[in-house]
C-alpha cells in the first residue's frame, strides 16, 4: 500500500496522528507530518486506512 499526504489541504485537525501515530506526527503548529516515504508496512495498512477515512479535509490518500 502507498500513502500520500497533501500538506496544502491539511488544516491540522490531528485525526491522522491520533489514529496512526506510527505513520503521522504533528509539527509544532499541529499540522500533519508523514513519517514514512510512501510505502506502508503491511502491519500498518489498517491504521493507514483509518487515517485516510477520518481526515475531514480529504488530505490523505491510500492506494493498494
Amino acid at each position, binding site marked *: 500500500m502507498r500513502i500520500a499526504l497533501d500538506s496544502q489541504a491539511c*488544516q491540522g485537525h*490531528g*485525526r491522522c496522528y491520533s489514529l496512526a501515530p506510527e505513520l503521522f506526527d504533528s509539527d509544532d503548529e*499541529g499540522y500533519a507530518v508523514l513519517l514514512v516515504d510512501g510505502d506502508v508496512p503491511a502491519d500498518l495498512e489498517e491504521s493507514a486506512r483509518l487515517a485516510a*477515512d477520518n481526515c*475531514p479535509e480529504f488530505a490523505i490518500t491510500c492506494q493498494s
Partner: protein
Amino acid sequence: MTDIAAGPRDWATEFDHTREDYAAAAPAIWDELRERCPVAHSPAHGGVWLPVRHADVTAIANDTENFSSEGVIVNAFKPEDLAPKGYAPPITSDPPFHAGARRLLLPAFSPRQVERWEEATRAACRELIDDILQRPDGLADAAVDYAQHIPVRVIAEMLGLPREDGDRFRTFIHRIIETPGQHADLPYEETLVHYLSQVIIQRRREPHRDDLIGFLLQAEMDGQPLTDEHVFGTIALLIVAGIDTTWSALGASLWHLAQHPEDRHRLVEDPEVAPFALEEFLRFYSPVTMARITANDTEIGGCPVPARDWVLLAFPAANRDPEAFERADEFVIDRQRNRHLAFGLGIHRCLGSNLARMELRVALEEWLARIPDYELADPDGVRWSTGQVRGPRTLPIRITSPQEV
C-alpha cells in the same frame, strides 16, 4: 429585528435559531429541511440563510472569497468594513490577514502543548465529582455542577486570569452567543469590553508573565507588536470560543450516556472504543454553528444569495447528512469512518480542537470512573441552549451506581 411569533412555524421560512423552540428540536428541523428545503431563509435578525447539506456547508467553509468571516455570530448589528482583520482575530479574519494571526496562536494549541493542561483538567474534574458524590440524595445537574466549570478553569489558567472570574465569563458568553442583540442597554461596567480593558491595563504593567496574555502582549506580526485592538479581540475570542462549546459537547455526551446504559458499559469495559466514541459524540452532538456574511452576490447549492447577507454555517446539520455519513441519524459508538465537521473545515478549523478533545476525553473518563451508572432525573427538565452553540444548560441526573465509601 423581525420578531417571529411563537407557535407552530414553517421552518423553511420562519426559523429563529435564538429561540427555545428551535433549540429544543434542532436535529429534527435540519432533517426536515434537508428533505424539503435544503437552503432555508428566515427574516429573523435582518435576514439569515440556513444551508443544511454537507456539500453546501463544505463549499461555504472553503470559499473565503464569497463568504467573509467579518461576522461570525448572527446579530441584528452586522459588522461592516472590518475585513480582513475583524474584531476578534483570527476567527473574524479573512485572507490575507488571517494566516499570520492564526499562526501566532497555533503552537500554544498544538497537541504537545495541550498535554501540559491535562493534569489540571483532571484535577478540576475530580474536585467537581467529589462535591457531587457528597450529596446524600444522589441528585445533581451534570451541566451546572460539572460540564460548565471544566473549560472555564482550564482557559482561565491558560490566559493567567483568576478562576473566580469564571462566572463572569459565562455571563459574557450567554449574552454574546446565546442571546445576541438582547443586551443593548447593559451598563458599560458589566460588559466584556470593560472587563478586558481593565485586564489589559493591569497586564501591561507586568507584561512578562508566562501565560497566553503575556505571550500576546509581547508577540509580533510582520515585525510589529500587535495592536491593542488585536490583543483585545484575540483574548475575547479565547474566552468566548473555548467555554460554552466544550461545555456543550460534554453536556450532550453526558445526556446521551444517561439514556444509553449499553454505551456507558461499553466505554467502561472496552477502552479501545473510547477514541471512536469521542468522535461520534462530536459528530452527533456537534455544538457549534458558525456564521458568514456574503462578500459578493453569490449562490449556495444553486440558490442565489445577495451580498451582505448572513449565512449560518451549520456544521451540526452537515454532520447528520446521509449523503456524507452512513447511518447518519444513528449514534454508532465505534464508527470507523468519521470525517465530521464539528470543528469546522478549511482555514478556520477550530484553533482549540486539541484542547477541546482533551477536555472532553478527560471529563468523560473521570465521570464514568466514578459515576458509571446514572439516569435522567427529570427528562422534561433538560433545557438546551439557544443560539449558535448547542448543548444542555440544565441536565438533572440521579446517580444509580453504588455510592463510594
